[in-house]
């Protein structure tokens, strides 16, 4: 019988090994997915008891979001406040136990609640530390943000301002805005959520607009950097011409003779650029669009569901170079092209930064409870074009603001490079664009602006907004 008894013990050991295996699976290997399970209230309850880190503006003083304690002892919980009201509603988002969290509050949640690796948290526990969140200094500049919101003046649209050399986002405005403080209230949240103007929707990163002529900066990059064309290359600027069998006209039906690229960009000559686009073809255009970050979600530190990829859409599907596309119209920002204001700001920032695209970032510094700081280490996303291309494009874009369609964006005493865009949605209804950077000789800020459904044109509508935001940031830097 002894052999059987030993085997029986072996069987029991196998059963117990199963217990150990399953316990390790739940407690260690699968714990992340269990903690993310929506039926699991533990993480929410526990995070309520952690002092969530403060979010500061780029000056390190202005408070964007802070947590204040309510109750005491074991029942003490922290509640989030947003002193800026609606000013930073998008992109900062909100964090409430009743409502969950979105935006910057979600994407930086681990730092804000002080989540660390298992090993570090054990060390902390041994030392008797209570979990506490890290503070974050965001890259947002209060004055620039305010200037952007004021500039839009209640008109639906968005403004994004990026530091070309680091990718730091100084302003990100989306109108209509919302006040995150009211989201706590179920009824108010319900109203925001069902509002036709979609205030919870971050237009700067989620909305897909036809880019209009601002796209010509991308086309020009492809043309110059691939070596296919130079600033002095010429096409005919007569209007209308047939592109893919459909007549295409210049804005206002304006006629031009045989003109070079600088003239064509300065006066935003559609027929010229459509011919250029057809000469370049799908592959070259896609190559440069991809380098600019089209056809993928932006690398910005916001949650993925609040970021949209820019590109050519058939319904919800992104088309690629092998699809049937009217590339001539893509070159002038028509066709089924949909871009985000963030993407166009990145285009301007890339030209400003000698052809290098930096990953955009909404944070500058993380400060842990002991005062240790982690600073943003700017990362290059891609090398889009050569310095030479960037320099030629810079010069051409300066001419747009000096003598072309973008004169409204001019800042006195400073040279500005820019490009306007007016996407006609229906007769008299436009999406008005302006993208650009300043100072052109030493770019400090790159900005994109869009105003939806306006009767105005890109230059006159968005030019002044660009000017105001740029002046605010540049004067802040000097002062």
């Amino acid at each position, binding site marked *: *019988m*002894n052999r059987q008894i030993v085997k*029986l013990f072996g069987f029991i050991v196998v059963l117990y090994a199963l217990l*150990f295996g399953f316990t390790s699976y739940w407690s*260690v290997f699968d714990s992340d997915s269990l903690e993310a*399970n929506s039926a699991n209230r533990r993480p929410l309850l526990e995070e309520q008891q952690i002092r969530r880190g403060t979010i500061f503006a780029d000056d390190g003083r202005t408070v964007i979001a802070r947590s204040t304690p309510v109750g005491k002892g074991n029942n003490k919980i922290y509640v989030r406040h947003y002193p800026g009201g609606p000013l930073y509603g998008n992109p900062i988002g909100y964090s409430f136990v009743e409502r969950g969290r979105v935006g910057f509050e979600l994407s930086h949640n681990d730092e804000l609640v002080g989540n660390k690796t298992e090993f570090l948290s054990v060390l902390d526990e041994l030392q008797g530390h209570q979990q506490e969140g890290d503070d974050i200094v965001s890259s947002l500049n209060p004055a620039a943000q305010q200037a952007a919101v004021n500039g839009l003046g209640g008109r639906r649209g968005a403004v994004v301002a990026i530091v070309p050399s680091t990718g730091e986002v100084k302003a990100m405005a989306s109108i209509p805005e919302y006040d995150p403080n009211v989201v706590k209230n179920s009824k108010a949240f319900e109203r925001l959520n069902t509002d036709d103007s979609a205030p919870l929707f971050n237009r700067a990163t989620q909305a897909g607009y036809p880019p209009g002529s601002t796209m010509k900066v991308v086309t020009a990059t492809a043309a110059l950097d691939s070596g296919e064309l130079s600033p002095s290359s010429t096409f005919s600027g007569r209007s209308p011409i047939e592109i893919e069998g459909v007549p295409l006209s210049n804005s206002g039906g304006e006629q031009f003779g045989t003109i070079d690229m600088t003239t064509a960009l300065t006066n935003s000559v559609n027929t010229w650029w459509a011919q250029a686009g057809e000469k370049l073809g799908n592959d070259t255009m896609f190559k440069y669009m991809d380098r600019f970050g089209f056809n993928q979600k932006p690398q910005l530190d916001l949650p993925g569901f609040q970021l949209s990829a820019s590109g050519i859409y058939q319904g919800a599907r992104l088309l690629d170079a092998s699809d049937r596309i009217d590339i001539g119209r893509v070159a002038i920002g028509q066709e089924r092209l949909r871009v985000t204001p963030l993407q166009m700001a990145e285009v301007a920032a890339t030209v400003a930064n000698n052809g290098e695209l930096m990953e955009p970032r909404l944070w500058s510094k993380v400060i842990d409870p002991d005062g240790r700081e982690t600073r943003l280490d700017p990362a290059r996303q891609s090398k889009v074009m050569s310095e030479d291309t960037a320099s030629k494009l810079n010069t051409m874009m300066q001419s747009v603001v000096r003598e072309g369609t973008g004169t409204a964006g001019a800042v006195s005493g400073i040279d500005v490079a820019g490009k306007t865009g007016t996407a006609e949605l229906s007769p008299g209804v436009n999406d008005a664009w302006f993208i650009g950077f300043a100072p052109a000789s030493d770019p400090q800020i790159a900005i994109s602006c869009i105003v939806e459904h306006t009767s105005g044109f890109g230059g006159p509508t968005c030019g002044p907004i660009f000017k105001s935001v740029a002046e605010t940031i540049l004067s802040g830097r000097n002062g």
Partner: protein
Amino acid sequence: MSARTRELFALIPVALLVTAGFTAVLIANSDQLGNLSFLYGAYFLALCVATHIVIRIRLPDADPFLFPLVALLAAFGMVMLFRLDEGLARDQANWFVLGLLLFSATIIFLRDYEALERYRYLIALAGFILLILPRFLGHAVNDAYLAIDLGPITFQPTELAKICIVVFLASYLNERREVLVVGARNIAGVVLPPLKHLGPLLVVWGAAMLLLVFIRDLGSSVMFFGAFLALIYVATARISFVIIGLAMFVVGAYFFAHTAAHVQQRFDIWLDPFDDAGGSGYQLSQSLFAQADGGLFGRGLGDSLVQLPACHGDFPDRCAILPAPHTDFVYAVIVNELGLFGGAAVVLIYALIAERGFKTAVLAEDGFSKLLATGLTAIFALQAFVIIGGVTRVIPLTGVTLPFISYGGSSIVANFVLLALLLMVSDKARRRVRLQSETRV
């Protein structure tokens, strides 16, 4: 060093562990430290030493590790209960004392456990009555009839019944194992026991099915039937018997799973606890969440979230982030507070107890002693597996107690009687081994 001295020394770290555990809970709960935990530790040590003296006198050769290991489990349980609810811990301490008294009484008054063989049918009958009693006197908890109310206390007769059944089976199988093996016939490649001896085995199978129908408890039936199959295997060395038995059980259980809604539901929850995580799957999914929350090292004693803060609702059960933390889900609390390491330690202690139990069976000389030790160890080890397995989703969740740890008087008392019998078998077996080696020298 004699076996008893080793036992005595092994008890000291256990008592220190209790003291440390109580200290940790006290600090977590009140931020202050009195001499209370030392007092509790001292009480615990005194009780264990007193019991140790009983063992020293009556069973000097018994296994030195079984009692300290059990004391360790009890210490674990007491600290966890103290952390959940001081009142529960006080109750449990009383039951612990009663358990030790019954343990000593068994050792002192049952001079020779082999006398049990003579009363085996009486014992079987008693066991059977104990099993079905709750159906007539008790009330259903979670749809299962497991407890009867005796005035202020509830009593779970299945806990005592398991000992009766094992004693009966050990005795019966010891007598019949020869004929079961010799008379076995090979029918179409399957070795079947002789038909006329099959009867009693069918009775056991029927009893297990009856448990399912009558008491409606899958956990107990698995436990009983598992111990039965373990004994059949050890007695006859025929794995085919085990397979036949298992097949019969599965067929029966499958049938009842489809006729009894609660069994079916248990299976559904087991297959996907998150499907109805707010309703029927609430308990199991919360158990898994608690374990996930524990991680490798746990949150520390006293730091587990068991109740929602300041929750008063129409459904008090919904206030519980972890329902039944002191009984069915005590293992989940342990993993939550002490992490994978704590959980692994508990499983390891049960494995060590199983090892000592089976070692006792191997050392025992006669068939009855071997089978008795095997049966007692197997049913104890299976009980731990059934409940921990349920809590960790290895098998469908059923409501048996975690021996010596979870709250429950009948469980702790019955398991101490089980331990007493095991130690008596061990004493006899080891005395023979000791005497043999002494005469050889």
